[in-house]
């Protein structure tokens, strides 16, 4: 007998079968806002990657004394700035006059905007470019698109270069937190019994120990604090709420028939937890994760206040905001632009989060 008992269907759709996540991605792609948000985050990532080419005072490429150099790499990691420019010939960030002076044959390709995220650009840095204004005079202008800080550091440059930290801290730390939180919460909720008992106590202990104390204690052992410690701290302490939410959801879902069905098929606990239950438990977990990625920016700036933040050579959005705190009334741009940046990332992350939630729910997808 022919198997076709179905009503007539139009449109024979692609026959290749995709996994759950691949299908979700297909549906995600159809959501305009979510995709726009995703593109925005990709855009930010590109900004982060190409920040030295967008703004900077170090040439992207330059020819100097017979060699080709890429001094702008120093923005990623200080020691990558070729030693000849720093400790060698003491350019001290003033590339243009020094290149000319030391080697008339030199040439350089410059970033789009010639501003530095760490130091105020001085009078003699570039020909025809005046010194950066400081304090209340540093309002946005053509020279300093987003204004300057109180000592004259360009805000646009700080924000562009700060994108690296903003993205890194958010994704890596929340990635860490999510992995820990979901695994612990899933085990705890699914197995119940003494496993739940032990893991719940563990969660409680981590919840009870104040982060601040951990941070300061950590500082005592870390010799060179860097952004990675921040990531670690946020990641290792920020998972508790995810774990609790996962646990609660697993407690509920493990009672539903399809879990019994999976068990009856002989599925192991890992499979049941991460293939069957997790995708149905995403709704409450996604929210703290999306917000967590954004909130990491705030946490980073709060921690840097304690001296555990990014080292002083790393520009961050939080730092600009922090400076703005001191000059709220006279230098609005110090709050406005980083605020705008944070807002747009928060919005983007949340749109993506909503998009994921809807794309992973077969019942809302089509609507």
């Amino acid at each position: 007998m022919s198997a076709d008992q179905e009503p007539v269907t139009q449109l024979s759709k692609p026959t290749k079968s995709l996994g759950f996540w691949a299908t979700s991605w297909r549906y995600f792609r159809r959501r305009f806002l979510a995709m726009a948000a995703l593109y925005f985050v990709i855009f930010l990532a590109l900004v982060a990657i190409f920040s030295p080419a967008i703004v900077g005072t170090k040439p992207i490429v330059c020819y100097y004394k017979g060699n080709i150099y890429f001094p702008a790499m120093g923005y990623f990691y200080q020691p990558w700035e070729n030693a000849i420019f720093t400790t060698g010939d003491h350019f001290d960030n003033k590339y243009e006059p020094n290149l000319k002076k030391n080697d008339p044959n030199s040439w350089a390709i410059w970033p789009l905007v010639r501003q530095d995220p760490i130091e105020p650009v001085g009078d003699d840095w570039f020909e025809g470019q005046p010194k950066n204004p400081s304090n209340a005079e540093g309002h946005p202008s053509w020279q300093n698109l987003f204004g300057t800080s109180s000592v004259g550091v360009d805000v646009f440059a700080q924000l562009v270069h700060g994108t690296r930290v903003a993205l890194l801290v958010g994704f890596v730390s929340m990635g860490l937190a999510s992995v820990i939180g979901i695994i612990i919460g899933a085990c705890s909720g699914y197995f119940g019994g003494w496993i739940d008992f032990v893991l719940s106590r563990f969660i409680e202990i981590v919840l009870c120990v104040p982060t601040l104390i951990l941070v300061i204690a950590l500082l005592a052992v870390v010799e060179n604090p860097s952004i990675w410690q921040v990531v670690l701290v946020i990641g290792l302490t920020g998972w508790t709420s995810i774990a609790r939410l996962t646990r609660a959801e697993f407690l509920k879902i493990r009672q539903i028939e399809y879990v019994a069905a999976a068990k009856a098929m002989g599925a192991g606990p890992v499979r049941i937890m991460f293939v069957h239950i997790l995708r149905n438990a995403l709704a409450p977990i996604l929210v703290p994760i999306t917000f967590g990625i954004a909130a990491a920016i705030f946490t980073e700036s709060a921690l840097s206040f304690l001296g555990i933040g990014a080292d002083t050579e790393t520009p961050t959005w939080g730092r600009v905001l922090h400076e703005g705190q001191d000059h709220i009334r006279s230098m609005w741009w110090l709050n406005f632009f980083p605020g705008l940046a944070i807002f747009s990332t928060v919005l983007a992350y949340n749109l993506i989060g909503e998009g994921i939630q809807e794309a992973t729910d077969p019942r809302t997808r089509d609507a």
Partner: protein
Amino acid sequence: MTKILLKVDDLRTFFHGEEVVKAVDGISFKLEEGETLGIVGESGSGKSVTSLSIMQLLARSAKIESGTISFLGTDLVRLPDPAMRKIRGKDISMIFQEPMTSLNPVFTVGSQVMEAIILHQRVSKAEAREQTIQLFDEVGIPEPHKRVHYYPHQMSGGQKQRVMIAMALSCNPKLLIADEPTTALDVTIQAQILDILRRLRDSRGMSILFITHDLGVIAEIADHVLVMYRGKVVEHGEIHQIFEAPQHPYTKGLLACRPRLDTKVRRLPTVSDFMDSTVTESGIEITEKKMSPEKYEELLQAGRGRLLHPKPILEEIGHPWKEGEYSADTKCVADDEKPLLSVRDLKVHFPIRKGIFSRVHGHVKAVDGIDFDVFRGQTLGLVGESGCGKTTTGRAILRLIEPTDGVVEFEGKNVRSLQGASLREMRKKLQIIFQDPYGSLNPRMTIEAAICEPMVIQGIGGTRKEQGQRAAELMKEVGMNPDHLRRYPHEFSGGQRQRICIARALAVEPDFLVCDESVSALDVSVQAQVLNLLKELQERRGLTYIFISHDLSVVKFMADMMAVMNAGKIVEFGPAEDIYANPSQEYTRKLINATPKDSLEHIQMRQEERKQARAERLSTIASA
């Protein structure tokens, strides 16, 4: 002249998902006040969608493309939601097809019914409770004053279905849409429910839209019958007309396929034996065909005879082997063979908790000390009143519920002591098809993933691609379109989901299968197809089944041995034919007698009763 209550005109409801599904494709019918319209049809033909269209409760992806649904003159399709809300529950109420997932898990069943009462009637809470308890009693829920405090998960499948019925009936609607309301009910309760419906219909003039695949039930209750096939109405007529002289080949096929208690065949005929369908540009073309006598012969001869317990055991249980009384190919298991599954003194007690601090406050003895053996290649039929513990037994065997006490041995190993890998190994051989197909499918897995899942877990079926092909084959075997593998569970009809579950259970090629009401939601043709499949598999691969069902004719068709359960205990056990022929227990007799009858005489009788009742009612109205 009676009023026309509902008039559906050229209704088209399409789903707009990945592809457009024309679930209902231009149907029209009308329903008079006090009339009962039975809708039968193939599984997936759009019955539920039609009823949901009337209720205006379609899924978000569904859209009514055209047509009108006029209820007492108002067009429901265009009615704004607030006005529609006033009609819902009060004027039209509905019993949903899947009672398992249709009850809110966090409220007691009592409060869910009470809510409906309070919403539409001006009564106090206490009165509403009274009414609820009474309704529960009427629909045959035992101990109603206790059960109102139960949560859905504490009720058996049939009990939940009765809660749904109670809820729908609570407000005396003008129109009751009952979507397969008795699938999970045993025949006695079913008869009781049908009685209530008839009574309400006759005394209050309620109209009923009764969707079912059970032609027996249709025969019992309907005035008119609508036969649906692939989103279209293929036949519409008075009940006796349909049964007497079906016009459409599909209807003819349906009538021919249903198993009866007195069926002789070993394989059931299916609709495809009576018609051919070809898909053409303009739609489907159906041509009638006659079943050839050879074919019929084949159905009678195919397969093996019944396989009974070893003779000594038969002796022991009071059904000694009676030479010659059984058909020629009935055999017994060799005397020294060990049972594949042996259950001894199995008990499952559920604690009942109460109050904020959930003190244990008594136990429900769902299964209370049962023993039985199943031998390799046998089918054990398990029947019994709804709520007697059948599902629980099945689950306890697979250790999906930890038994309170007792021994379950599978292949000589105590199932209760298995752990980890050996438990997994056992589960490869032992499979269950759940009573609640919707709940047992992960809503976020395509059914392809769902069907491949056991293969992936057990590491069989080769590569991913081969597994996919196997899934497609399985889909075909249970009568579904393999193109739909990429859909999600909610995109199917109740019967389709049930078949998916069957396909999934078969995917691992188990040795032993517990089928819990596995064909209850299937139309007779598909049901026949599935039953044939199961039989064929048994023959080919020596599969062993525990077959739980309310439909005695199905059980009789399938089972070698049969157990009758009541209140957690096995009250009767023996060769299936013996038990049907000579039920020793009053309870069993009742079950057999309550099976709906669809003989023409019976229909005639019902119609006579009906006319009388109607006349009485009209006269009372006239005199009033």
